[in-house]
């Protein structure tokens, strides 16, 4: 059984976790080109080696970052996202999208 060391819950069976994709930077949806957006949504480095990724502990809905080796299947390090994201990110809301009742 493969063990994932969760920064919040400690070592748990990896089946309790959900893989969340490579850590990448989202381009600004308002200014980016279609091609760049497609690149962000569909394309991936898919590295054979050390990767930095989002993972989630499903039972506690806790998201964190894992560094792992995709050839040896070793988990090298896991940590809370606050180690990387030191500033709050605000997603600008387009007001026409958020106008109340749409039923």
């Amino acid at each position, binding site marked *: 059984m*493969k063990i994932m060391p969760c920064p919040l819950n400690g070592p748990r069976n990896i089946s309790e976790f*959900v893989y969340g994709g490579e850590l990448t930077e989202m381009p600004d949806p308002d200014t980016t080109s279609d*091609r760049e957006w497609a690149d962000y949504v569909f*394309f*991936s480095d*898919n590295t*054979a080696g050390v990767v930095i990724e989002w993972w989630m502990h499903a039972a506690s809905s806790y998201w964190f970052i894992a560094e792992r080796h995709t050839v040896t299947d070793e988990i090298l390090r896991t940590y809370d996202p606050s180690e990387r994201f030191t500033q709050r990110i605000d997603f600008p809301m387009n007001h026409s999208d958020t106008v109340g009742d749409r039923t």
Partner: protein
Amino acid sequence: MPFSLLKYGLSSDYPVDVDLPAPKELKSSYDVVIIGGGGHGLATAYYLAKYHNITNVAVLEKAYLGGGNTARNTAVIRSNYLTPEGVRFYSESVRMFQSLSNEFDYNIMYSERGQLTLAHTDATVRAFRQRAEVNTHFGGRTEMLDRQQIRELVPSLNMDPGHLPVMAGLWHKDGATARHDAVAWGYAKEAAKRGVEIHQLTEVQDLVIEGGKVRAVKTNRGTIQCGCVVQAVAGHSSILAKKAGFTMPIISYPLQAMVTQPFKPFLDPLVSSSALHCYVQQTSRGEVVFGGGSDPYPLYNTRSTLDLKESLIGAALEMFPFLSQARLMRQWAGTTDMTPDYSPIMGLSPVENYYLDAGWGTWGFKATPICGKTMAELVASGGKTPDLIAPFALERFARFRQVNEMGATAASH
């Protein structure tokens, strides 16, 4: 021992046929270099020679012939996909498979058993109706079955697995299986006969790209010049593409499968259930093959896991409870290159004379003949994409024109 057998053994005609010529030195240049000696690469080489008279071709394989996913797949051949593009493409492949043994004069053990996919929910029943209609429209033989018909077709099937009673089935008469190794060997033998060079233990380590074109490939046996390159490396598509200077819409996951000890024949059709994430079939040797969904996270590693064994066997026993005493003989995995829409990537790349045959995920064995044929057409025409594969171009992602086959792929392969 019969005297004639002894005489045959001692005669100079024995062994009758050498399938593959002995390895040679690499030449300094080829018109076409094909990277990857799996079914796809070998089929491309064969059709280049057969239909286009292009024989100055080298197939470079880093390990041994057909030892990649061609040797690891569970050999489900079918065309009951969902999209018109998909059904048209895979139906043509099924048609080609049917005459392959004759064409090679070599038995690929093509066996048309039919494939039954089970629906356990209303939503699946609706999706199956759509697939049956689309399939029939494009020339496949696919219809809906009710519970009684399923019971008659597969008497050994448990119709009420735990929380998921079987509601209906999608019956695809064209569903088949074949000996996967023989497919690779047949293509290799026939390609070699026509002058194609097949080099095993030859790994492409780098690509020489100049002015937007590939000029040469660097291998562990030296550098060779090339007119163009076809990349057909299944689970390593992103790695090679990176050497060519671009990324792919691919994530590589392991896919595992396993096989039991042999039994007397009890199961003719291939049976699959996407809700149980499991498909079961009996080989011509009597072994029962279990296959299912991919591993839960990406890896370039073909280790086996206990988690998957437990879940896959659990599901298989829901379908065929009497197999609980069966012994597992083998278990294995392959690296599968998954695309976001569960369709392949075939055709042009950002490098002018570098052609892609990639993103075959968990479903590419069945496409071997048609893929080889259309890739050969593409190469021979110097980059004119055949209509049949135009929808599968890498460009589709930048245009948001995916060909969604996720629902029709699931655990049916």
